[in-house]
């Protein structure tokens, strides 16, 4: 009984806050998704499922698919580049750690739009990188680095990078060195040590990192717009367009509700899988 009370006590701030400022607005979102667009773009109180039925269209499915692929690719590249980096920072001499960590986050305190424009200056046809490569004689014709999928990926990777590194850092930092030493003493190869010791112990950091990269990437639209030339429509553009072009709030809300459900299901599956791996390892 006492335990229940203290659980309630410690969780009450978040429950009260989220009830007031999140649950009620969320309820608004869900309820509007069942209404219809008014003649002039307002909301009409006709309860309907039309907004969800409209979504069953190969075109929207393709947009969904494209967005998932881009987010997934961003997540994987963030993980591949970010994990070793987070590991190095997390295992570096203690006195440097904090400053190395701060150095990661500092560039991200500059407005992301400003940084994206800096990338454009860097990558465009007559930009810094091309001029440099031409001057060095490495290429003789400027490379087309912008307004393609590669540029979008670089931009996304750049913007989301700390969201992968920081959670992994937090879990690498607590790694017990003795376990790794023990594995070494038992003649485990570095790869085996990594797979059997390091990876399982930093799993929760990886999970958090992937989550914090994958999900927000689905909602990013200024990178595909600015660096990709806005040539393909992603889920985020589709939702934005419902509010800022078609003025179809109910449909926009319906897409969002579906997105939220889908993400929660994916997160749920990932967590279940994670727990399974847990029980297999130990």
């Amino acid at each position, binding site marked *: 009984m006492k335990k229940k009370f203290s659980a309630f006590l410690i969780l009450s701030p978040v429950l009260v806050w989220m009830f007031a400022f999140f649950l*009620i607005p969320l309820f608004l979102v869900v309820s509007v998704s069942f209404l219809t667009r008014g003649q*002039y773009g307002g909301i009409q109180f006709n309860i309907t499922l039309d907004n969800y039925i409209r979504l069953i269209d190969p075109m929207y499915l393709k947009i969904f698919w494209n967005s998932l692929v881009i987010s997934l690719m961003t997540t994987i590249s963030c993980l591949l580049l970010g994990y070793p*980096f987070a590991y190095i920072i997390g295992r*570096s001499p203690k006195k440097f750690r904090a400053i190395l960590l701060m150095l990661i986050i500092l560039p991200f305190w500059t407005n992301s739009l400003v940084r994206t*424009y*800096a990338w454009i200056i860097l990558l465009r046809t007559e930009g810094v990188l091309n001029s440099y490569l031409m001057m060095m004689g490495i290429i003789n014709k400027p490379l087309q680095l912008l307004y393609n999928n590669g540029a979008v990926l670089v931009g996304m990777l750049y913007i989301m990078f700390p969201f992968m590194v920081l959670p992994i850092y937090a879990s690498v930092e607590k790694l017990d060195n003795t376990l790794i030493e023990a594995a070494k003493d038992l003649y485990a190869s570095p790869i085996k040590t990594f797979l059997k010791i390091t990876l399982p112990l930093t799993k929760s950091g990886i999970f958090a990192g992937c989550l914090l990269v994958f999900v927000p990437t689905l909602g990013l639209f200024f990178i595909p717009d600015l660096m990709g030339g806005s040539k393909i429509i992603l889920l985020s553009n589709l939702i934005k367009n419902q509010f800022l072009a078609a003025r179809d709030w109910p449909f926009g809300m319906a897409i969002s509700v579906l997105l939220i459900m889908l993400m929660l299901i994916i997160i749920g599956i990932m967590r279940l899988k994670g727990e399974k791996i847990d029980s297999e390892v130990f």
Partner: protein
Amino acid sequence: MKKMNIWSILYSILIYTFLYLPIFILVMYSFNNSKLNSVWTGFTTKWYVNLFHDAAILNAMKNTLLIAFVSTMFSIVIGTLTAVGLYRYSFKGKKFIESFLYIPVVIPEIVFGIALLAFFSQIKLPLGLLTLIIAHITFSISYVVIVVKSRLDGFDKSLEEASMDLGATPRETFFKVTLPLIMPGIISGGLLAFTLSLDDVIISFFTAGPSSTTLPLKVFSMVKFGVTPEINALSTIMMLFSIIFVIIAETIKNKNLKSKKIKTILVSLVIIAITTSAGLNIAADKANSEPLVLNIFNWSEYLPQSVIDKFEQTYNVKVNYSTFSSNEEMLAKIMAGGSAYDLVVASDYMVDILVKQDLIQPIDKDNIPNLSNIGSSFLNLEFDKGNVYSVPYMWGDACIVYDTSKIKGNITGFNDLWNPAFKNSIVLLDDERAIIGMALQKNGYSINDTDPEHLEKAKNDLIKLKTNIKAYDSDSPKTLLINGEAKIGYVWGAEAYLAKKENKNLKVVIPKEGLFLQQDNFTIPKGAKQKKLAETFINFIYNPEISAEISKAFPYANPNIEAQKIIDQDILNDIAVYPPEEAVKKGEHLKDIGNDIKYFDKIWSQIKQ
């Protein structure tokens, strides 16, 4: 602890280079003489000087830092408690709470922004710093919880037990054992929350009030004319301050104040926050204590600060000037309610919508004698017969621009864009009505045509055009034309004019098939507190000298005939800004097409899928 090996060091250097590359570029361009962030023209420090005279940017900076500090502190406390609670106890509904806390990360920002806006207006909480802070705390909490929880995972419970066995109270145990152990997680989570808050645009747009603009909102609204080097200068200064701050924090830490460490860092954080905001306050505030406040909502980069200053001085009032970057963005904010604007600028078709949705009120033209300065061809237009609800502000068009050094031969209209020789070289406006409208005009139909057959044809044409398109860009298509990324473009007249100034090879063509026209107008929302003052402001803007001053700052076409007498000939004779009269007569304004917009939206998605 082993020393780092050479590969680790090399890899880290590589990653840090990647992270700092754009920072290096923006620091460099903060010393660039050209206002456009595209070509290096020479060294200057004038942007730093300008920055310290730009009260709007400094004020936005102050708001941003304040919001980020406060919301991070709150979300760290709530988030850490939550993570510890979820980790320590198991109870019914725990899984549910956990999943629920993921939703703020998952929900699209625009949806959350609009939902919060609707909610705040329901509970009658006026939009401002408070609503912004509430919004930021709400989305930050989840990030802190997720990161701290991942740190707690695998946390050795025996340490806590040992502490309790040794007679420590639960409180002592928490502060002396648990907290220090999860500190790296809290710091990581807090840094992410701080970063998110510093950078948030969309949620902030919807939850900001007339006087609480943040820096990202300001930057976002500047995009249309390219982010000015002032922002680069500001970023450079911020970067410098952050580095100094980190060094100070490190020095304090290394002095081994161990138990007091956290306290010291917190105290120094607070001191720095207070001093910076106080300093910025002094720099930004001009000690305004006037009783009357006029809240204006206008397109970004459309009205120079000098005009606002003159109005404030003449009438001894304060103006809160906030901006939007599309009609629909403005409508969303007005529609959700709770907006406190006295004067809103809206384009032609949007005036129609605002009237139909009963969101604006009639204007008392007796208070605007200077309306007589406005040319008759800009009054009494179809979207507001008799100018009951709106009076003109500025107008513009869209035209074709091409680079004569790259394209030989004659360009006369839209049809030329489909020329296979222009593979991957066109920049188009990223606007479904304008572009589908263009394809309709190309086939000889009206831009407001909603006939399914005509739309189908336009769609197929636009799909064929895809291979020729380099990029869609509504914000700053001129950049692509200036730096040679695109050879030909369909852009706003003002953009074309500016592009031509930078790249002399560019030539403007008024498309022979028809002209897209847009007229922006002043409107007064229902419930405006300062209707009379808003009308006084409109009258002030219609002064020929003031009106000409606006035209000098921003190259849009001015409907003020008296002002045209004092506007530079150079711009008056530019066909991109002031297209020939016969073309204007043939031109069309957008109309609200009601529910048919759904087809436009679907076509747009099909073209871009």
